[in-house]
């Protein structure tokens, strides 16, 4: 069971209050009509599947009903941070950290 910090309720809640809502920070292209089919498909269907840090959205469905972002390690399940929609993650350069933390395990 994960304990997830909801940045809106400002406290830790049990995982069962939340539902997973997919990869975070996906920006809708501002001019979809100018994209190639491949670029559009990339935006629409293709998602990261890293072995390491992953920025993802969670939905506090049984609580305040807000979406927010979580940075979670997909190997250890450790949650590095959770932050509001619209905020930037603390660990932008996740790749370097990825390797370190995987080697550490």
């Amino acid at each position, binding site marked *: 069971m994960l304990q997830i910090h909801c940045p809106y*309720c400002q406290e830790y809640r049990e995982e069962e*209050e939340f539902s997973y809502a997919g990869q975070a920070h996906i920006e809708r292209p501002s001019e979809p009509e100018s994209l190639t089919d491949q670029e559009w498909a990339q935006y629409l269907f293709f998602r990261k599947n890293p072995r390491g840090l992953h920025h993802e959205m969670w939905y506090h469905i*049984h609580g305040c009903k*807000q979406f927010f972002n979580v940075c979670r390690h997909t190997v250890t399940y450790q949650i590095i941070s959770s932050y509001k929609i619209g905020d930037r993650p603390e660990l932008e350069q996740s790749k370097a950290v990825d390797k370190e933390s995987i080697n550490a395990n």
Partner: protein
Amino acid sequence: MSNNYINSPASPLAHTNLAQLAKQHSNVTAGINFRELMLLGHLILRGNANDPAFLNGAQQSLQLALPITPCSSSKNSDYLVFWLSPNEWLIICQQETFAQLTAQLTDNLVGHYALVDVSSAQTIIELSGDEVINLLKKSTSYNTNPDHFTIGKVVTTTFAQTSATIYKAESQRFLLVTRRSFTDYIWIWIQQASQEYGLKILPPAKALE
């Protein structure tokens, strides 16, 4: 303003005849006391908590500041207000005050806001007694430690296999705001979960206190 539930009021627990059960239980003492606070006015208010004009309009209408701290509440003799999310509050009052409150809010609020009458969509179950914390521990994953779940705090969380908004009114008295269609399930759950403590049904009330 027409309110259908005023014309045909019915609690989601009407079929259980709580008033009759309460008569049978009048001499019982039990670890858990159950009381429905039925047919109260429930109003959802939504707006921007960072907008002073919105907060001011709400305060003028309620004679009470909206609780803007997460999971907090505020109250006076007429209203009980729960923080539900950063832009959403639940205001509970007696049915007699409801129309007046709605009119005042409509007068005092400007700009982008929403008022939704959810009175007939939910009800309130009051749980009290020496064993009430133990009953909650069985029913919700929320931390019921008195240092954490303090008096006046209100949390929306899981309750049995559904969810409820739980308000701590006193150290051993809680209000559960439950959705209408789930209330019968919660009623059955509470009866079973409180078997080991004993359950006393109190006469349903149409007021907050």
